[in-house]
């Protein structure tokens, strides 16, 4: 597949994801009809890309064609994890993801040229340039003198996770108490539905992908709703960067299940307008999410200092 075709395809997958979000926010159920024109207006695009996006959903068994033409949902959007192939997890064959992965794994240094990356990944100059531009857009790379690019090592280092929590602890509770915070009730209702589905799952059946989607959507919802464009921008960028980072760490299922319950509690308080309480719970949630395993341990070894490792 050419990189151009792949990019086009990614755009359609992203649009398909957007359609699912809209369907979820509107509480749509299997069998409900997806009207192309309405979707085009809501997504601010023409009907042609909407048709392509619906085709993507058809291929993945999320919608069916109707006898009289058009498409209808065949799955409950609240139960669905993020679609494979969206920009954030397209990664495997993509140079953007490969650069980040190799940087995080210590395979490449933070100083690179387009030529050196072109050699490493055996792709065209244009492909590397596009990837670097996208990394720059996401604040993961910047131009240096001459032909050099500097990749932001701090964003993928082992310390990045701890620093990210530190940043979120300072900002996310604050976002909840911004004076112009605007509650997006349809989005809250739709999220709660997905969270309830997660809550009904046992440790053995817990759907990690669905959790990842609701986790991201939940924190993005707070960021988008805070009513302060500067705060909103900082948090949205941070969450996106967090999602594209290969150093996501490993969390135990039990913790993810607890995390889901904490999300639900925060959301309830947001819905009721108890923003100070929601902010306090967010503080607790972020602190509980940090792993405090000792760095070193062994028989007869003196007490160890701590490492935040998730």
């Amino acid at each position, binding site marked *: 597949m050419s990189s151009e075709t792949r990019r086009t395809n990614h755009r359609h997958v992203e649009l398909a994801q957007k359609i699912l979000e809209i369907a979820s926010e509107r509480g749509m159920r299997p069998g409900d009809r997806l009207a192309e024109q309405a979707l085009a207006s809501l997504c601010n695009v023409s009907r042609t890309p909407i048709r392509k996006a619906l085709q993507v959903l058809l291929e993945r068994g999320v919608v069916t064609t109707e006898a009289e033409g058009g498409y209808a949902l065949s799955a409950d959007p609240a139960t669905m994890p993020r679609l494979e192939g969206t920009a954030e997890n397209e990664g495997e064959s993509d140079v953007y993801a490969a650069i980040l992965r190799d940087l995080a794994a*210590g395979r490449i240094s933070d100083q690179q040229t387009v030529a050196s990356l072109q050699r490493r990944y055996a792709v065209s100059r244009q492909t590397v340039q596009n990837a670097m531009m996208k990394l720059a857009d996401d604040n993961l790379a910047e131009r240096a003198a001459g032909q050099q690019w500097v990749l932001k090592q701090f964003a993928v280092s082992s310390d990045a996770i701890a620093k990210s929590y530190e940043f979120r602890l300072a900002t996310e509770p604050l976002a909840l108490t911004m004076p112009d915070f605007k509650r997006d009730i349809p989005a809250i209702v739709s999220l709660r539905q997905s969270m309830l589905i997660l809550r009904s799952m046992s440790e053995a059946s817990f759907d990690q992908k669905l959790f990842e989607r609701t986790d991201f959507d939940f924190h993005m919802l707070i960021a988008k709703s805070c009513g302060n464009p500067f705060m909103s921008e900082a948090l949205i960028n941070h969450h996106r960067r967090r999602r594209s980072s290969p150093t996501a760490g490993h969390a135990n299922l039990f913790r993810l299940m607890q995390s889901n319950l904490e999300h639900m509690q925060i959301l309830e308080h947001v819905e009721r307008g108890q923003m100070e309480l929601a902010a306090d719970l967010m503080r607790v949630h972020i602190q509980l999410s940090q792993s405090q395993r000792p760095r070193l341990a*062994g028989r007869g070894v003196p*007490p160890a200092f701590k490492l935040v490792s998730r």
Partner: protein
Amino acid sequence: MTPAKTIALFPEASYGAALNCIGIAQELRRLGATPVFICHPGFSGIFSDYGFAEYQLGEDTSAPATDWNDFIERHQDAFRQSPFDQLESYVGPTWDAIVDTAIRVEEPLRKLIARLQPDAIVLDNVVMFPAIANAGVPWVRVVSCAETEIPDPLVPPYLSGCTETPSEDWERFSERYRAVTASAHRRFSGFLTQSGLRPPPPSIFLEPSPYLNLLLAPEIIRHERRNRLDEELFQFLDGCVRHEAPYMPPRFASHNEAPLALISFGSLGAMDVAMMKRMIETFSKLPYRFLVNAGHWRDEYRDVPDNVFIDAWFPQPSVVEQASLFIHHGGNNSFCEALYFGVPSIVMPYCWDGHDNAKRTEETGVGLHLDRYGWSEDELTYAITSLMNDAAMRARLKDNAVKMQEAAGVKRAAEAILKTTQKRPAIPPSAPSGISPSSGEIAGRDPSPPPTPTRENNDLPP
């Protein structure tokens, strides 16, 4: 409704014991009990990750600041020595530190147990804590070290790395062991006596529980014993593996379809970055994928080969399950996990029962023993490729893994622990006459006779 049984688990401050206890606690929770963890100072944050309550003995700040450079400098050389030479440089000082810890935590432990009022206590350690013997509730000993920790005339001495064929080395090692641990043992015996308990036999710091003792060793590596262990009191679990979330291996820059090897020497064993880098250099030339646990030193690695992925932590059971080879230090948990999933081991020990497990790996044909430092690139390559291609060993290990998984060690452990809560509390082995127990908690209790472990087990010091 009967209240849920509270089971206090007290693993030593090492990852092996801690993670082993987590497996048991997960099963206790599933059976409706309330497992809680008692944590050594500074050793917390692990259990809460799995959703268990943690109670720390003392404050973090009370412990003196650790100079890790000094610690590593002191022990790096010891880890290059033979088990015999380590007796002086590492084993003796480690027993001193262990006894120090046991004495230091006694009072907070006694107070905490009184507060928690558990129905049973699970001790996964190598040393006794009088507060546990005197708590007035049944206590269970988990032997998460190699089986050699429970001595027998036919079992090689603990920590010796000796072969199973008795030789002069056994006696030579045991004598030296007794000598290097003598001062720690004297102090410890005095401490137990003061606490109202009988001092243990020479070289022994923890006697079997009169209620229940759980051993991990699966049948495939178990030793013959002259003195049969009482099956009521000593249960072999055939592995004790916790449940972890599934692990998705990362995308490598090459060899993505190749067999996977995991390399982990425990959090302490990762300290020798130079040795690890030497291994990685060899890995770069082999057609396999390698996951390397670099622990605290993850950021020390640059120019990592395309078929190698380094991280500070892996959910080990979920990774071993997918691996074709596990290179480790012979930590008993790692060794048992490899067997539980039918994966051959290359054991490169550097201390403690790692030596015993390395020898046992070779003797029982479940992998290879490689000196941690004395290997050439060709030797490491040969060890890896020969195990990767040994179909007969793999088939035998897979058959054994089926048996181990069917044995459901964590479930049996949890059930047996809950059963002990119905036993009547035993009077702890008392100190010589004229010395009263320091804790009055057992005074006046019905002196029903406790089950007695086979005392011959302790006749032969390690």
